[in-house]
């Protein structure tokens, strides 16, 4: 046991450095951010699947409308229904599957970061406290001394595991940042440019067909066509909204990750939490809106 005035600063310094190390506990917001990013990215597969579906719908649109309305065939000398070129849409099948795999790699990364950031250090420090209690009892310390030893065991263990965890997170976030950026940018480009272009083409095809079949004075047919047109158009707009939400989610995940990777070494827990909050809120809202898309 320590005795004398000269030894007093030592336990104080030890405790100070332990508390310093404990303030390095990775903030819960890292786990929350990774969880929100993962939840939003996981909504990708239905959007990817619609890349093929959009092509197939465009191919089918004439066959779907024309046979139902005799006016669609007014005065034609040949069959207007062009057989659908299934090979065009078939080209999207492997791409859709691979896009799902790409997004699953990104999801797995965010899941792993979430698990690491959310690791419950009390599972270690609680046991260390028990160990301290056991050792204190074995050494037959006084109650106060035994309590101090067990608390110190807990603090040391927690400081060591937290330090390890924080360093690992910092290392991994920095290493992954350029790859997260490239992969999310690529998925964003595919959804916001390529898929959007397919939806725009589908919309034009739908408008073309309704314009052609809508040439009639029959009020009942006009009513039915209007209703069908509105439904088709609404469905297209919902898909556009989902695509935009997914693109925004990818951008939020990328930007939030970059901010975290750039600041994890310098920012304290409060600063990290404040920096991540807007991204977490946006990602949660986007994941929810994507889940509710029909």
């Amino acid at each position: 046991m320590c005795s004398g005035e000269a030894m007093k600063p030592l336990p104080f310094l030890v405790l100070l450095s332990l508390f310093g190390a404990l303030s390095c506990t990775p903030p819960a917001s890292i786990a929350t951010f990774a969880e929100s990013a993962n939840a939003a990215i996981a909504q990708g597969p239905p959007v990817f699947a619609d890349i093929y579906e959009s092509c197939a719908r465009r191919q089918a649109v004439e066959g779907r409308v024309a046979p139902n309305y005799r006016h669609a065939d007014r005065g034609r000398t040949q069959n207007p229904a062009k057989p659908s070129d299934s090979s065009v849409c078939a080209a999207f099948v492997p791409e859709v599957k691979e896009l799902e795999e790409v997004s699953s790699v990104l999801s797995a990364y965010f899941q792993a970061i979430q698990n690491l950031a959310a690791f419950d250090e009390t599972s270690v420090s609680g046991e260390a406290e028990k160990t301290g209690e056991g050792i204190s009892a074995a050494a037959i310390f006084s109650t106060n001394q035994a309590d101090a030893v067990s608390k110190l065991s807990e603090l040391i263990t927690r400081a060591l595991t937290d330090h390890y965890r924080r360093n690992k997170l910092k290392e991994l976030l920095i290493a992954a940042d350029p790859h997260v950026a490239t992969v999310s940018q690529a998925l964003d480009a595919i959804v916001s440019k390529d898929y959007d272009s397919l939806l725009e083409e589908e919309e034009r095809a739908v408008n073309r067909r309704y314009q052609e079949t809508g040439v009639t004075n029959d009020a009942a047919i006009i009513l039915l066509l209007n209703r069908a047109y509105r439904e088709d158009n609404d469905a297209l707009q919902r898909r556009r909204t989902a695509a935009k939400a997914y693109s925004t989610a990818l951008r939020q995940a990328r930007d939030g990750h970059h901010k975290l990777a750039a600041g994890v070494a310098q920012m304290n827990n409060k600063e990290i939490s404040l920096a991540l909050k807007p991204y977490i809120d946006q990602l949660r809202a986007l994941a929810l809106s994507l889940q509710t898309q029909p």
Partner: protein
Amino acid sequence: MFDPADQARQIAAVFARMSRSMDAYIRNHFEELSPNQLDFLNDVTQRLDDAHDRFIAMAIRGTIDALKDDLSELASITGRAEQALKHLNKVAEVAKIAGALAELCADITTADFGAIPSALVNLAKILPETG
């Protein structure tokens, strides 16, 4: 730098522009066109749309192909994160064993012989989990 995905996207955009022009023509001359002319123009438009779709598929393929290195890096970093978590879990298991051993030592040292069997049972419970 040559980017096959971007080039395919640019070509797809050219076909989309042509298709839009055809659409505009059909819309503006709809009343004057005979059904056969309309069919012909619709057929041309659809072929332009097909060409657009083919180049979009090529753009997607090119984009995915360009991601190979980034994906393998990301997968490897994910593996490292999982390893770090395994390491922490192992530390937790070791701490459990140390706790049980300390409990046993305490019971022996303090001559609390009645508690030794339960301390042994606790230790035995933990050991298979960590094996």
